[in-house]
Structure formats: structure tokens, C-alpha cells
């Protein structure tokens, strides 16, 4: 949670139990480097404590791309996939728990500023997700408890 990892194939990156958080994978099919960011909040400018850049969509996206470029990724080749951003609890009139949707929007906006676009997504709903990101193929498996598995 609130972490970013980058690595080169072969290997798998994973993040477990995403709720309102959003997992973002970025993969360069030529150099076979990939990164996985697990963001928790949309916007660092509203936060009092912003030491952890991986926590916020607006700071985690540039950080993810920079780190990939440092290990041989090329920005224009990156394939981006996102998953998560669920609303786990349906609390009446409580906007605090609509954070999932705002996270998804913020990730897309931050990517747009970097001239990147989302190629595939599995977002929203009211269930948790676990992601496995294969650095050889760029494929992302989304695992859930009651909604089966999905391949992105």
C-alpha cells in the first residue's frame, strides 16, 4: 500500500487486497521493464503529510515513469493498465468513502499530463482486487473473491 516497485523481466510484480486504492502497471514491451504503483489518495496538494510520493496519484505517476526510464523504459512505448478504485462500504451520505472513484480519475489525469493513456482497466464496483503483473508479457491478472479472475 502506497508503494511503487519497478523491475525487469523475468518476474512478477503483485499487490494484494486493493479496495479504494488503485494499482497502476506500466510496461515497456521492448526493454521488458515494468512498474507497479499502488496509490491510496488522489491529490497530494490537499494532504498535510506528503513525504511519501507513492501515496498520491499526482506524485506517484511521474515517479513511476521516472523510475522506469532510469532502468531502460521508454515513455512513449509504455502500456498502462489500472485496477481498483472500488467503493467497499456503502455508507449513506458519507463522501469520505467515495475515494475510489476520485482515485481513478486522478490517476487518469496525472497520466494525461505525462502524455500517457490507459490501455485497459478494471475499476469501480464494490469488491477488492489483487493484481499479478507479468513482466515478460505485460499481462495483468486481476483476482477477486467473488467476481472471478480477469485478464487485462
Amino acid at each position, binding site marked *: *500500500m*502506497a508503494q511503487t516497485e519497478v523491475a525487469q523481466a523475468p518476474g512478477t510484480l503483485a499487490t*494484494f*487486497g486493493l479496495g479504494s486504492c488503485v494499482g497502476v502497471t506500466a510496461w515497456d514491451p521492448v526493454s521488458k521493464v515494468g512498474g507497479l504503483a499502488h496509490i*491510496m489518495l488522489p491529490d497530494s496538494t*490537499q494532504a498535510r*503529510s506528503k513525504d511519501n510520493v507513492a501515496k498520491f496519484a499526482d506524485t506517484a505517476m511521474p515517479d513511476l515513469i521516472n523510475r522506469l526510464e532510469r532502468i531502460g523504459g521508454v515513455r512513449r512505448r509504455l502500456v498502462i493498465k489500472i485496477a481498483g478504485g472500488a467503493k467497499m*462500504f456503502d455508507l*449513506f451520505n*458519507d463522501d469520505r468513502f467515495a475515494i475510489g472513484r476520485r482515485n481513478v480519475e486522478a490517476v487518469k489525469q496525472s497520466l494525461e499530463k505525462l502524455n500517457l493513456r490507459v490501455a485497459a482497466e478494471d475499476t469501480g464496483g464494490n469488491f477488492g482486487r489483487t493484481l499479478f503483473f507479468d513482466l515478460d508479457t505485460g499481462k495483468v491478472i486481476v483476482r477477486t473473491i467473488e467476481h472471478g479472475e480477469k485478464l487485462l
Partner: protein
Amino acid sequence: MEFTQAEMDVLKEVGTIGSGNAATVLASMLGQRIPITVPEARFLPLSEVVTALGGPEREVVGILLGVSGPAPGTIIFLLGIEDAQILSQKLLGAPPEVPGQLSEMEKSALSEVTNILSGGYLNALSQFTSLTFEPTPPAFAHDMAGALIDAVLAEVGLVSDYALFIETNFTADQDGLSGHFFLIPSPDGLERILQALGVRRTWENSSKI
């Protein structure tokens, strides 16, 4: 945010009384005594919270309440799916309709237990602080532990990289039934609570835990 040992002790004491209140009501509902473990007040980095709960993919039932008032926060009662069914069975006096799945009746029984536990804690906190705490109706979820927790922590995460958990564990008889009850004050709410408890001093005097 920094805490003194005295502050942690007071929070723990509030927790003990609150869980005592709750256990008494729960015992009369279940017709048996519920031993409670000494509550813990734990101050954890956000990244370690889920690990402390048994891992992000553990299948759990979570019942969540928002707390509004001058010291807002969140309450979440978490228990494994098997424990959830044992507890609802005790409350309803009927075996689970579908093992591994909860019926509407079972969900509402568990939500009621959460209301009772929350009432016990919030009453204790009110008595100590003279603040009012207003819980929202409970919301129910059955999913991965990590997924349930991260929505709760998102709110805390805006302000701090740490969360304070006032945790109580319940165990009942030979079934080894256990549940984890967490009161998670918002950082501002926590400040208010500590001030009202009369243990918050200036930052310079507090030693870091």
C-alpha cells in the same frame, strides 16, 4: 504525531472500560460470558496495519460505522468469515444457511453486534471526555481484509502516515471465536480526545513512542 506513554495509557483505559460495557451487553444477548483481552492502543505505520490483521488477502467480514461530532473517526469490526458465521449462529440460534456466505438476516445480526460494541466504546469515551459521538448506521462488507481497510485508512492518510488503532479482541468459549474491533480516530479527532482527557500537553514535552 507523537504520543506520550501517559496518553497511550489513558486511551487503553478508555478501551478497557468501553469493551467491558460492550461485553456485558453482548454476553446477555449470547447467554454466555465473553472474555475480553486487554485492549491495545497501537500506533502503526499505514503500511503495517493490514499485515497486523493477518494479511491483505484474508477473507473477512467488516462492518463499518462513521463517527461524527467534535472528534470524528471511524469504527470497524473485522472478523474472519468462519467466525462471522459462528457469531451470527449464536445470535440467531440457527445454523448458517449457506456455509461461507452470509444471509441478510446474518448480516443484520452482525451489524447489530457492531452497534452494541460501538455504543459501549463511545459511551465510555463520552463519559471520560464530555464530548458527544454520533455513530452512523453500519455498512457491511465481505471481502479481502486489505480492501476493506484501505478505504478507512485513506481518510487518515491525508493527514498522517500513521494510524492509531484502539483494538479489542473478543474470544468466546471453546469455539475460539474471535473478532477485532477498531476505533480509528481521525488525527484531528484524536487531538480533541486527548485534550478533553486532560493528558495532552505541549508538543515539546511529549516524548516520541
